[in-house]
């Protein structure tokens, strides 16, 4: 449903991750093109979140390589990349967490301004103007001066999305953005993500919302036991997946 170009935004090869003897990711490969929207589905513990978190270096992979817009943040030869470089390249990625992780001591506006002021060294006036525009975009212009503890879950998550967008990322990562929300609040968050999709933002979304995955994605990845079992357009995954495991999973979801 979105326009993709051939420009490669993320390239992952042979990514492995283990905790002790437990292998969480086993030789994962992925290429993400500009404007592409990819949903990652699969059972709990299949490594979906770990994979997403490895991309932005919240988890240190144990083997494989990660290129973000051509720049290595993890090298196949295991040579370490300096932390400053990793932070610089990972800034092209924005991340939204399941539990929002808003800064409780800052207002909604303060949360959105924090990155631009502290990291991008923007003036407070510029940062505030842009932050207010972003809050308006996610429908929270009226809540700018409120602290997170006074916001609903859906509002918190929308502030978190605005906070990530304030860093002007090229790619957005969503880690189960609606899993911590009451059912009636899921819609407002998905609407914001859909609006981003219409702007051709490159996105990776780990989700349990099958309807959303089917409607919005260009590609759907099914992960199981640390592997990508199948990656295909949503119609194929949801109607005629190659793998019987996927059908079993989807049957249980509905």
């Amino acid at each position: 449903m979105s326009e993709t170009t051939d420009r490669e935004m993320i390239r992952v090869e042979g990514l492995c991750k283990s905790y002790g003897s437990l292998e969480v990711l086993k030789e994962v490969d992925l290429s993400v093109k500009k404007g592409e929207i990819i949903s990652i589905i699969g059972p709990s513990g299949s490594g979906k979140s770990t994979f997403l978190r490895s991309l932005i270096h919240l988890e240190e992979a144990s083997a494989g390589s990660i290129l973000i817009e051509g720049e290595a943040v993890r090298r196949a030869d295991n040579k370490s990349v300096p932390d400053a470089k990793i932070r610089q390249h990972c800034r092209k990625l924005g991340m939204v967490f399941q539990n929002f992780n808003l800064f409780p001591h800052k207002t909604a506006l303060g949360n959105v301004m924090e990155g631009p002021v502290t990291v991008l060294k923007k003036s407070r006036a510029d940062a505030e103007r842009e932050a207010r525009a972003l809050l308006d975009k996610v429908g929270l212009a009226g809540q700018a001066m409120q602290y997170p503890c006074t916001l609903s879950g859906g509002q918190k998550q929308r502030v978190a999305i605005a906070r990530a967008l304030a860093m002007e990322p090229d790619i957005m990562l969503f880690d189960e953005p609606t899993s911590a929300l009451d059912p009636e609040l899921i819609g407002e968050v998905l609407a914001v993500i859909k609006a981003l999709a219409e702007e051709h933002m490159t996105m990776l979304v780990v989700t349990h919302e099958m309807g959303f995955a089917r409607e919005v994605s260009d590609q759907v990845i099914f992960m199981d036991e640390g592997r990508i079992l199948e990656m295909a357009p949503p119609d194929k995954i949801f109607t005629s997946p190659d793998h019987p495991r996927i059908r079993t999973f989807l049957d249980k979801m509905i």
Partner: protein
Amino acid sequence: MSYLIKSAQYILEGGAVTLKLFFITLAFSLPLGFVCAMAKTSRIRAVRIVMELYTSIVRGTPLLLQIFFVYYGLPILLPGLRLERFSAAALTFVLNYGAYFTEIFRGGIQSIDRGQYEASRVLGMSYVQTMTRIVLPQTIKRVLPPVANEAITLVKDTALVVVLGIGDILRNSKEIVSRDFTIVPFVIAAGVYLLMNYGVVLFFKKLEQRYSVYE
């Protein structure tokens, strides 16, 4: 009446010494506690071990003994290092309260959710930025109640400097008591301590109110 005023005046002169010690101790032991708390959560093992030794020894021995040690013991260990009485007392108090604040701040820092570090990280913030902008401001709110407790204890602990013959509230009161065979000065001293701690409590209450705007 003039006797009472004269006594009170003399005791309040001691109050100046007590206050001086109180503020010097807080001014140095709070930053010391912050630095040591960071060191105690450091990734370097040797640093953590040194900090563990510091807090264990200081918190595990009586403050009174530490005062004796710094004033009488240090000059024996390190000839030439003879501290004047008030300096010796102040140094001891700073080191002693620094150790308690280290533990309070360490607990506070470690109680901050991992998600806060992750959110800072994905915004591209460095470790120092994460600590100063995100973690420490939230830590301050959480440690206010235990820090207030320590400050109250400190007001009373200052009375220990009597053993070095420093003219604080308690010593000045005691002088009048011995001279005039009356316990009135002790009552006045108690009143002064109570008043000081009332100020401390009020101060921290205001501070807590200021931080109560969020969660």
